[in-house]
């Protein structure tokens, strides 16, 4: 798949274009000197494998289910309505 996707498509925002202000920030990173010592690259927020929780299913309370349904953008004849699906 070599299809090029523009940022408006990637972002699902019509007419979106890269911002000049944001590009200025990215240029700083592109031009930054970096220390290649990989020992310096510490990922502090990773969770240890031993610490991963088991998959747990939390049953939602009745009130929670009711609010989730109430938040759904459209309802018709008791059904929650999604937009027409397309395939390409």
């Amino acid at each position, binding site marked *: 798949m070599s299809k090029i996707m523009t940022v408006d498509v990637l972002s699902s925002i019509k007419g979106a274009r890269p911002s000049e202000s944001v590009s200025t920030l990215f240029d700083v990173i*592109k031009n930054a000197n970096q220390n290649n010592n990989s020992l310096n690259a510490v990922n502090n927020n990773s969770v240890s494998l031993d610490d991963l929780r088991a998959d747990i299913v939390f049953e939602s309370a009745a009130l929670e289910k009711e609010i989730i349904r109430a938040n759904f953008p459209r309802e018709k004849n008791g059904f929650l309505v999604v*937009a027409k699906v397309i395939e390409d």
Partner: protein
Amino acid sequence: MLSKEFTCVSLVQGKLDLLQENTHNTVNSLLIETALGLAAKVDIKIENGEDIGLLEGIPFGIKDVFMLQGTLATASSDLLKSYKSSYTATAIQKLLDAGAIPLVKENCDSFGHGSSSENTIFGAVKNAINTELVSGGSSGGSAVNVAKEFTIFSIGGDTGGSIRQPAGFNEVFGFKPTYGKISRYGLMAYASSTDCVGPIANSIEDLRIVLNIMSGKDVRDQTTYGSEEISEEAIDYKTSSVKTVGYFKNFIEADAITDEIKEAFLATLEKIKASGIAIKALDFFDADILVSTYYTLAMAETASNLSRLDGTNYGARIEGENLKDTYSITRSEKFSEETKRRIVGGNQVLSQGFSDAIYLKAQHIRGQISAQFSKDFTEVDLILSPVTPGAPPKIGESLKNPLAMYLSDAYTVGFSLGGLPTLTIPKGTATGLQITADKKKDAAVLQFANFLNDIL
């Protein structure tokens, strides 16, 4: 309340009235029924002579990016204007369990995207001290409510300075704890790797009490860790063993810092030195590197986190010709300009051809920043810095110049990237001072804040 000079209902009603009448635009929604119902229960307990907890009956505010079941959670956005929380955030639930009473969902920058609380559908939040100035952001409404004493404390979210900077702008205390100390479950995700929950209050003791209640491991947020309660004695500065305090030389030598902030900061260092603590100047990354690293990663994460907001399952939906069209019309119409700017920036750096040169490089620099902090804390006990390089801007200025707004976060974002506990004390410079310690040394930060509060 215990001496029955006033009832909890009268206290809560008084605060609700102040919030309702206020002209600072701090309120997104008032929780009148919930608050008065809970207050009546507290009065009955007192009447019956039952014991009540430390936070029982204490009115507080919640930044409008937290879930509280059955109440609106708008993120100050058009897209979620009518969205109701189906569940309650862990941090908020713990406060409710301790008897605290939620009064208000507070105005903020939409999805936390901003440093001025102007990026909101509820109107720019006005500074507590000078209404022509911004309140700071993104937790601007929360800081102003505390400063005006509309709430006893408020709960904010801090991704790159969103508690500390508005605390400094409105002369209150604000604390971003160590990353993972408080569960993020139920906080709308902006940049998950730096998002933190924290309190804003008028005293260090209030911060300690609220922090203790909200902290702890949560099975619903795997980045949380178990932490011991911080005792009153642990933050008494008379027992402090602080020998050396560091500061970043280049923060103070930067062109962006105003003379007023610089002189006040240096004068504060002198006062600390006079009390027998050594001061050490430290080398650090340039402000533009810190800001660019932070925004690169934060935008990438927010682009990913906000991709779920497409009008399908919740939030506003504008129907298009087909599913993709519905997504893009909804997002184009319902996200603010600043939020769209960040989503687009995030997708830009995550896309093929950019990710190596920008995103992965920023991740690498973040690793270097963390390593630098680890090294610094072998030489100093704490790091002191200004909160911002300058005074709060006038309302309207930040929206005109997004780059200037991003660069104004120069002194706060580095500590977010390091996941370090950092507190704003509203003293020492016009916009306060930040005290930072190594990870999990939150008590040391509070203790030093007590010391500074005494000498400044």
